[in-house]
């Protein structure tokens, strides 16, 4: 890895944070851009502590608002960026909410352009995109620019436009561009460590919430509410939740430690282009449901082809599933030729989301109270 300092945007976020942590650990000189809120230095300090990283070189930390030209930096911070030649752009808004349309555009699309503008000497731009820029495309998604105009939500649409912006600007300014397209990312496959617990985690969190609610109603009250919800508890304390999950298709999950290693391997290889960072071994919702049942004292989760609509427990599950359906019941596959060429060469194989990895990730999430203790 070269000695040039690297700017990492979204360094307080999940992927940006883990990448920043690893690069700092390896002694890379880093400029870490947090989001607009106050206390960037303290947030990064706590994040590095959480990641067990003792910096060799203290990173230069500043807050930024990438929706603003010049990133809203003070003149001194702005000048510091003049020397930056390498950028890993992880800042983004990942909301699927329709209400966030305007902000999604501002952060994801304008933000990408603003970052490139703010770093005049940039020579290498690593852009964190997503495997789901493919939108509603079916079949095999290639490691190529996407042409689809149909998306499952505005997040996907803005991520696709952000890729376009990055390609357009980098081509115009002769900047080497690498685009990473990870699939759903979970915690570290060995420790479960993560800072965000949405996507994959959320349905498990809902199940555990329902389990605890039902248990409490039965153990501490008369259980009448639990029973009228069709739930029950067996003598061993296992709670039966009569809910069903849609089981068509597959879900692609990669652990964050793999993502970090893969990104660094691609950076070190000097390769440009688009890289799918995806798991060759996908999971089914049924598998994940049975892991949840086995590890967390739950029974009764059934798998159906589509979303079922019956009763309040199911309604709660559906509410989430409606949003995440395209990712949990994915029929697409992701081409990996370019990434395999670099990563397999480096001996990097993506760990499967098997029972052990699932458990270590979920246990960590529970320990962190689903993120309440990882607010950096």
């Amino acid at each position, binding site marked *: 890895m070269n000695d040039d300092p690297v700017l990492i945007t979204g360094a307080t976020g999940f992927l940006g944070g883990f990448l920043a942590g690893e690069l700092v650990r390896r002694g890379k000189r880093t400029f870490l851009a947090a989001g607009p809120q106050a206390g960037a230095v303290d947030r990064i300090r706590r994040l590095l502590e959480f990641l067990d990283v003792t910096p060799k070189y203290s990173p230069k930390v500043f807050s930024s608002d990438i929706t603003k030209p010049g990133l809203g930096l003070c003149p001194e911070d702005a000048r510091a960026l003049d020397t930056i030649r390498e950028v890993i752009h992880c800042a983004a808004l990942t*909301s*699927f*909410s*329709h*209400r966030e349309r305007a902000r999604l555009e501002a952060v994801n699309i304008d933000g990408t352009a603003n970052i490139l503008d703010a770093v005049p000497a940039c020579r290498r731009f690593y852009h964190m995109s997503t495997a789901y820029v493919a939108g509603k495309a079916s079949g095999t998604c290639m490691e190529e620019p996407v042409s689809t105009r149909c998306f499952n939500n505005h997040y996907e649409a803005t991520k696709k436009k952000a890729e376009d912006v990055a390609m357009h600007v980098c081509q115009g300014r002769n900047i080497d561009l690498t685009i990473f397209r990870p699939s759903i990312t979970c915690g570290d496959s060995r420790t479960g460590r993560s800072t965000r617990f*949405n996507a994959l985690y*959320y349905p498990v*969190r*809902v199940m555990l*919430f*329902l389990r*605890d*609610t*039902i248990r*409490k*109603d039965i153990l501490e*009250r008369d259980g009448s*509410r*639990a029973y*009228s*919800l069709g739930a029950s508890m067996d003598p061993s304390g296992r709670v039966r939740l009569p809910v069903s999950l849609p089981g068509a298709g597959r879900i692609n999950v990669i652990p964050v430690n793999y993502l970090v290693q893969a990104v660094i391997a691609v950076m070190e290889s000097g390769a440009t282009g688009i890289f799918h960072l995806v798991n060759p071994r996908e999971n089914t919702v049924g598998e994940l449901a049975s892991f949840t049942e086995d590890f967390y004292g739950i029974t009764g989760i059934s798998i159906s082809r589509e979303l079922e609509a019956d*009763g*309040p*427990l199911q*309604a*709660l599950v559906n*509410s*989430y599933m*409606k*949003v*995440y359906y395209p990712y949990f019941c994915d029929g697409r596959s992701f081409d990996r030729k370019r990434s395999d060429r670099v990563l397999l060469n480096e001996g990097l194989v993506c760990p499967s989301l098997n029972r052990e990895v699932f458990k270590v990730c979920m246990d960590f999430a529970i320990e962190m109270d*689903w993120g309440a203790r990882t607010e950096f």
Partner: protein
Amino acid sequence: MDRAAASALETARQCRHYAMCKIDCLGTGVCPSGRRNHFVSYYPQGIMDITAALLEERIPVSAGLFHVADQCTMCGICDLQCNFVTGLRPMKAVEALKRRVTELRARGAVPVEAPEDSFLLSLREITGREFSTSDPAHLTAYSTDPCPTSVETVPGYVALPEDTQQVSSIVRLCRSCGVEYVVRGNGSSVMGFVLSPGVIIDTARMRTLEFRTEDRSVTVGAGISSMELQKEAVSMGFRVNTAEPSALYCANIMCSGVFSLFSSSCGTGLDNLIDAEFVDDEGNILQLSGRNGPNPCAFQRSGALPPGICTRAVVKLHPVCEGESAIAVPFDSMEPAILYARELNAMDIGLGIGVLGTEYLCTFMAPTAGLAGTMRRIYGDDLGIGYMVVVLGNRHHLKAARALAPCAIEQGMITALTLGMTSLENSGFASILKGMGTDSPYMNLAEPGMQILVEAALDPSPEALASAVDPDLRESYAALYSRDEMTDMLWLNTFRIISSRMGREGHVVAFILYVPMDVPDLVAEIHRSFARVADENGVRGDFGFLTPLERGSMGVLEWDMYLDHTDEDEVKRAQEAMVQAAGMIEGLQGRDPRILWIRYVFNQGFARKESFLHRGSLLSHE
């Protein structure tokens, strides 16, 4: 000043003057001393003012002061009532007053009798000796209100007439002696209207109430509060279009014409008035229905003097039907909420409709300011509720309202969420809904059967809710909230015992406007303009409510600013904001003649609403 006195003074100065301690708002009784003696000075509200004045040494030791202190039975009724609405503990002021009077007596202080001049003698001849006074303790309870623009004005006298004849005689006396007067109901208009250096004519003793159910009418004396009127009406199977429960009904008619959520079906102003009796400024007795009575069609756009003191009003009774209830329809933004409320009203659906902001909703439902804050965060930020349309109606209304709504939260869910409010945060339920990543997490609350899950998660109960209040009041709160009505949206809108909670976190300055509701963008613009004025002046403020009228073509909108009326800096900022808001409203009225600030309706509340809502079309306007 010792610590107890300082704390009492702090409490006393915070009195909001909304007079909720002058009525039996909680069904727990009403101040026996006030009921017996009628002057506001004997009620907790008056005691707050008197205690503040005494501790700040602004009043002398008078006979009235001793009498007020002696008459208080220390029953404690006021502590629960006032705490329920404002979070204050008036017993601190009551105890401080008692203590100070005991000390004064121990020190041998001799109370001075207020001099009985010839004018007072004449007043006393009319009302009976004990019902007219110039005692400084009593006068002090009639000399202020928390409005930032009110100027403290100590009256010369306070008189409590018992009937129309006595009112007429007082007016004639004042006229012949050149003494000014003002009529006062419960003083809860809190806009400085009921302050005067002359005589305050307090209508508290004019307590006649006669029902003619066969004619669906009730004759209401000027001293009857909306709460008393509504209680009687409901017990007979009727409802009256009342607003604030502490407002004396005749005062409310005269002042604002009475607008409430029910106005969407039964109107405002003259709509609910069959007749009224007035004493004009020469002491003549007039009837609205009489030849010389005021013309309710002659609305004066520039504002008007009252036709006189309203001594009685004959009011419409609306029958209550079996199975009336309510639903709440949440929205994330204002425009769709307005469109929905308007659509219902255009189709004549619902007995009452109101678009409420989250600020109101949470403030009303939560028993403490702390919980209201938590609720605002959870309802607003986590669940995404920006506005809630409350629909009151019979079975058929509600069926139609549900069918037209994107989703509807039922009464049972409202009860569960209210009684389970203290667990909303810790149970994880709210964060589960928030984390869904869906656009409108609140939609889950409208799912059939979700109430059971909410109940299982929150384990709602009166005791759980009561755990949020001061420990010594918990038992009383638990008893209150074990009554179904306390979470029943229809009942709460009928009796309105929680709406004055809007002043709990600071005195409220309400801006009320009639607005064209068929232009939701304009309403949203009005909201933004108020918000800008408040923001620029560093004043806390928010949209209150909007009720459709006239089949959705018009609406009555309230926007509120809040302040600590005892903080000079906040008062100054609020004054400036009020001036700017006034200018802004005048500008809006110039742009669209259908916009009307309610200040122009004051004193003409008996007017036909068509005369002010459609004033651009009046022939006299040409």
